């Protein structure tokens, strides 16, 4: 059984006929547990498509996606359960629910169904440095604070795979730094396979490996720590 995240010869097309775009062109990627990788590339290269496929939000036209040893080919109902129990997403800041306080944002994924051995939402919020603002709603938080709440929300179910989309687009350099350091630390401590999609080259030094995506093709760039 493969652990972590495995994409094998994945192809994803959008539209058809004249309009057809190949968003992912024969992409293979294996992220080990405890490893954080970055995916960079120009706009429209297929980075979000990669996360969508890895997270079981779309089924690729060809190829195989395996999360924690579980194949993601299956009906939406089954994929939803895998998303709920094994995958953590960090979306953009405006993807917090406006009605919920910070601590309730973190509790929310635990209300969707049974989760084995979840992390404690209050402790988790303290870990991301947000314990003093746990009663605030998203509109009362800064961009960086929202991002940290989003990270805590993604971690509460102890996912095996963590997918992070443009985490730093709304943040200044110091905040970006903090969020990435947090992601790297959580990845190593809790043995997750983490993929961070970004435009931001500052992010790369926190990552174990860096991939570049151009026109739907994924290539490994260079070891990031160098």
């Amino acid at each position, binding site marked *: 059984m493969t652990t972590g995240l495995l994409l094998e010869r994945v192809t994803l097309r959008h539209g058809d006929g004249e309009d057809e775009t190949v968003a992912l062109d024969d992409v293979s990627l294996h992220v080990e547990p405890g490893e954080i990788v970055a995916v960079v590339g120009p706009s429209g290269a297929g980075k979000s498509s990669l996360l969508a496929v890895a997270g079981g939000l779309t089924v690729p036209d060809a190829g195989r996606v395996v999360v924690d040893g579980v194949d993601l080919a299956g009906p939406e109902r089954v994929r939803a359960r*895998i998303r709920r129990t094994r*995958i953590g997403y960090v979306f953009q800041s405006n993807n917090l629910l406006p*009605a919920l306080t910070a601590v309730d944002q973190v509790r929310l994924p635990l209300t969707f169904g049974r989760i084995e051995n979840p992390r404690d939402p209050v402790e988790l919020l303290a870990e991301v440095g947000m314990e003093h603002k746990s009663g605030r709603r998203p509109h009362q938080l800064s961009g960086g604070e929202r991002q940290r709440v989003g990270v805590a929300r993604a971690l509460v179910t102890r996912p095996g795979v963590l997918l992070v989309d443009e985490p730093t687009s709304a943040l200044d350099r110091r905040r970006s730094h903090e969020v990435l350091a947090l992601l790297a630390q959580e990845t190593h401590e809790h043995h997750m396979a983490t993929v961070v999609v970004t435009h931001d080259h500052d992010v790369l030094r926190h990552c174990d490996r860096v991939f570049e995506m151009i026109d739907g093709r994924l290539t490994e760039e260079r070891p990031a720590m160098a």
Partner: protein
Amino acid sequence: MFLTLRELAFARGRFALMGAVVALIAVLMVLLSGLSVGLVNDGVSGLQKLPVTSLAFERGVPTDSAFSRSVVDSAAVARWAERDGVTDAAPLGNTLVNAKSDRGTEIDLALFGVQPGSFVDPDPAQGARLGSAPHEIVVSATAIDAGLRLGDTVTLDRIGTELTVVGVLDGQHTFGHVDVGYVPLRTWQEIRAGAGPGDPVPAHAYDEITAVALRTAPGTDLAAGDEAAGTASMTLEESFGASPGYTAETATLGMIQVFLYAISALVVGAFFTVLVIQRKPEIAVLRAMGAATGYVLRDSLLQSAVLLVVSTVVGVAAGVAAGAGLSATPMPFALDLGAVGVAALLLVALGMVGAAVAVLRVTRVDPLTALGGNR
């Protein structure tokens, strides 16, 4: 539950506004229900309280004017009485008159002419039954509210016949919005013929009645009885349609109520449609995080249930309070808690249907949109 309650609290302004609309619809619904029960009472309570199962009218008169036009030969009573299954048959006369009491109260009366001692001769709550004296009248309790007293003399307009109030019935007995007064059949026949005191009465007047009042065993062959007696019988319920204005009133109110239910379902449906469209990004996030469709549906349906139940209860309470005030006025208004309960349930149920249709949209929200860039 977790998300539902927090969203309700967070968007309480919006939900309160919508709740106020539903509550006002519920108030209107209670008032309409009271009005229709009141109108039914005013129209036909005098008939509802007759101990009869069917009435046999003249053959060929239109249903909606059977009481005013029907003339049946009193010989039909005997023919009906000998039929199998007919336990009782008695003559019944019906005429609307205007009258004035000796203390100056002007009152309209629906005179029911009955044979004293027959099964349709009522037993009053106060005073005495109709006796052998000719010019007696037993009136509905509502006539007392209108200003009559036991012992009053009532003089009919135009012909000048004088009637003495000898008995008062229990509760409301009205027919076509007019208080019922029972008089001896012979007196009714004279009044019907237009014969005042001292006027000659045409001989045939004493052979004419409006209908034969019947009490029959279940399953009695009424068609055969009609054949034998030369009449056209209606069940008591069918005869309600012959009360003046009854069919038109109930149809109008019924239609208004149907519209009210439809409006409320549409309004609630429209509200939740807008709400779901507005919450689409949030719903996409919920689904991307793996919340099952059922979770998202339950969340929205529970919100609509809370909204509908709370505002219907508030609205019904306000409507009942307003109705209590109206009952004291001369408006035909009577609250029937059963009818209000059914209407409230219907309001909630149809509101839920409207909400459910709207909320089904959440199943079409693509979780993929949650991953997109800036919205």
